[in-house]
């Protein structure tokens, strides 16, 4: 129980730091809703998002003392909106994502994930290494499925951390999902 409380506490701090980073990046207030880290059946993970929604997925592999996957999901409209704000373009001017827009979205993913993992790393003295981000478009469920199937090769369950960002003034909504195989989080649990 103490272990679970500590995980929740770290998650709350890390989520808040992500929100602050996003808030600074976009120069606007960000609300963050985070769920408790959950160990769940791998087949049920796709239910954590609105699977039919069309959008952009930014995937970052995590290695180091603990390996896992991070996935940032934004709706199509939100991705375009984020690009408008980050690149300081006229509102609603992004229709199709250019190569530069895609790089900016990957950078947003890097910043958010980097802030989350920094809190986790400092609190637990566990090293994480972020891999190169990859970008995909399509249904949230289909994007998430690719990550989940990779975990399913070696595990029946995964530990999932789900953060939902809401930027009321910009109508932006997105998810950050962190997935770890339970068999690979021993260093993390030992550090608690």
């Amino acid at each position: 129980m103490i272990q679970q409380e500590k995980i929740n506490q770290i998650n709350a701090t890390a989520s808040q730091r992500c929100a602050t980073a996003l808030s600074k990046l976009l120069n606007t207030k960000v609300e963050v809703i985070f769920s408790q880290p959950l160990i769940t059946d791998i087949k049920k993970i796709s239910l954590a998002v609105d699977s039919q929604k069309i959008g952009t997925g930014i995937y970052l592999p995590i290695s180091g003392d603990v390996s896992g996957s991070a996935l940032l999901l934004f709706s199509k409209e939100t991705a375009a909106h984020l690009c408008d704000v980050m690149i300081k373009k006229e509102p609603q001017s992004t229709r199709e994502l250019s190569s530069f827009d895609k790089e900016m979205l990957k950078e947003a993913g890097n910043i958010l994930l980097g802030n989350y993992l920094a809190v986790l790393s400092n609190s637990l003295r566990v090293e994480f290494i972020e891999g190169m981000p990859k970008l995909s478009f399509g249904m949230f469920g289909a994007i998430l499925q690719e990550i989940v199937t990779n975990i399913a090769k070696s595990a029946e369950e995964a530990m999932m951390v789900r953060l939902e960002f809401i930027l009321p003034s910009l109508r932006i909504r997105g998810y950050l999902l962190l997935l770890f195989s339970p068999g690979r989080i021993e260093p993390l649990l030992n550090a608690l």
Partner: protein
Amino acid sequence: MDIEVLMGELAVVKGEGNFTASAVGSCLVAVLYDPKLKIGGMIHAMLPSPVTRDPSAPLRASAQPDAKYVDAAIDLALEKMRSLGAQSFDIEAKLVGGANMFGFSNSDIGQENVLSAKKKLKQEGIKLIGESTGGSVGRSVEFSAATGIVTVKICF
């Protein structure tokens, strides 16, 4: 009757029944249908076969067939269809999914899933009459066991 087939699940019905599998990426959906008896089945599998498991991972104690795997799911679906009276030579198959959403170059589970399904269908003597597979797109599938019609929506 509406049946949503989630990842790692399968369903089989005789007669009326509308199956759906939404947001299919690298997973493989196989629709199996006996048009004479109107017996339909759908599998929504995640991985090609249990032998593709990470060798460092402990094997599960249970050796029960698991619908998470393409070959085992097809076996289970065919078994259920045969128990309802379907004959292998009457059953037709259509495959959907098997995408590579991130364009990974070192791993293509989607393609492996498609190949596993084709191998299994050939072993079982099931005719493959259509497919919408591969690429880097998500798909949603609907299948009516009353008509045998399969509808695939591709989302870019």
